[in-house]
């Protein structure tokens, strides 16, 4: 068995000797000239500082350009949307079923040119702040082409259309208010609670 302090002292010596050689290797020859050459290269090609902001700016410009190019360029026809909106906002006279039937039976050569109405989702168009404030809300919208054609059709000389026009323009004379008679309610008789028939407990 070795002496404990002796072994500890020898281990210290061994450790110190090993630590002394732990980080003493020589660098490969030419390290200093390489460092100086690298610094001279930095002087010749200084770091391009404007690239720090130029590259993101260029990327942003490219992104905006791509977005603008791929944006849908076909504008929506306003004549197809206005009747939808006007019909929903303005109380228009709805033709009865009979008149609709008569419209269908009108000869083709008398019909106005038909246009295909495509139902579109009403889009909320942000109003420009420069537009004047309107007195009536919602703003009355003039009749569209289809609505004008419908009014012209109703005003033609066919008997059904005349009847329809009268129904629209004049109030129905046959509809009269019913006479209201006063209500008569029979008297209610309530027997008293302490009558002799009801025995108290």
């Amino acid at each position: 068995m070795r002496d404990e302090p002796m072994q500890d002292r020898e281990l210290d010596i061994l450790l110190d000797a090993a630590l002394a050689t732990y980080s003493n290797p020589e660098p490969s020859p030419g390290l200093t000239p390489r460092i100086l050459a690298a610094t001279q290269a930095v002087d010749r090609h200084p770091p391009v500082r404007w690239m720090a902001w130029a590259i993101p700016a260029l990327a942003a410009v490219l992104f905006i350009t791509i977005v603008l190019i791929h944006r849908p360029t076909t504008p929506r026809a306003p004549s197809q949307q206005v009747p939808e909106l006007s019909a929903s906002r303005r109380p228009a006279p709805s033709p009865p079923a009979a008149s609709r039937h008569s419209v269908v039976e009108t000869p083709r050569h008398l019909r106005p040119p038909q246009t295909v109405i495509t139902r579109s989702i009403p889009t909320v168009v942000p109003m420009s702040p420069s537009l004047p404030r309107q007195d009536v809300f919602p703003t009355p919208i003039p009749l569209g082409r289809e609505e004008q054609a419908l009014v012209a059709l109703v005003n033609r000389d066919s008997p059904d259309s005349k009847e329809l026009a009268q129904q629209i323009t004049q109030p129905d004379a046959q509809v009269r208010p019913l006479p209201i008679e006063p209500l008569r309610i029979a008297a209610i008789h309530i027997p008293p609670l302490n009558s002799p028939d009801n025995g108290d407990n």
Partner: protein
Amino acid sequence: MVNKDVAEFEALVARQSHFVFRVAYAILRNRHDAEDAVQETFLKLYRNHTWKAIENERAFLARTAWRVAVDRLPKQQPTDVELDHEPLSLTPSPEQQAISAGLHSTIHRIIDTLPEELRQPLVLSAMDELNSREVALILDLPEGTVRTRIMRARQMLKQKLATTMEKPYAR
């Protein structure tokens, strides 16, 4: 940069590159990595012009090199080494003298297995150019903490060495 400054910087590189290399090598334990770290260290100083106003030149360079080297240090720590030498005895004998050339490298490998928080103060303090106050400055630690860590590192190393050397006697 003015010619005078260039000359001063070249003198600084010539004066301290070896020392900076030793600091980087103590951390990285690889010659090529250490040389790259030295180059990066001096390039940083050159770009930032910080080398012009250095008070403690060695400590400042060692701290910069240590930061660069630690950034390059692999995250995975080395595990316990498998010693490929025969069990060692402190009693000098011709046989052990024959293998003494490999003894230091074996201890180096044991040092490499230490935790970095213990290994770095130990190896930096082993450099003659750095005292414990400068090591504390480099590692940004209190001097007492550095001393404690060095002591713990030495104790761990001695325990590992004693275990390694006493194995034949334990049989």
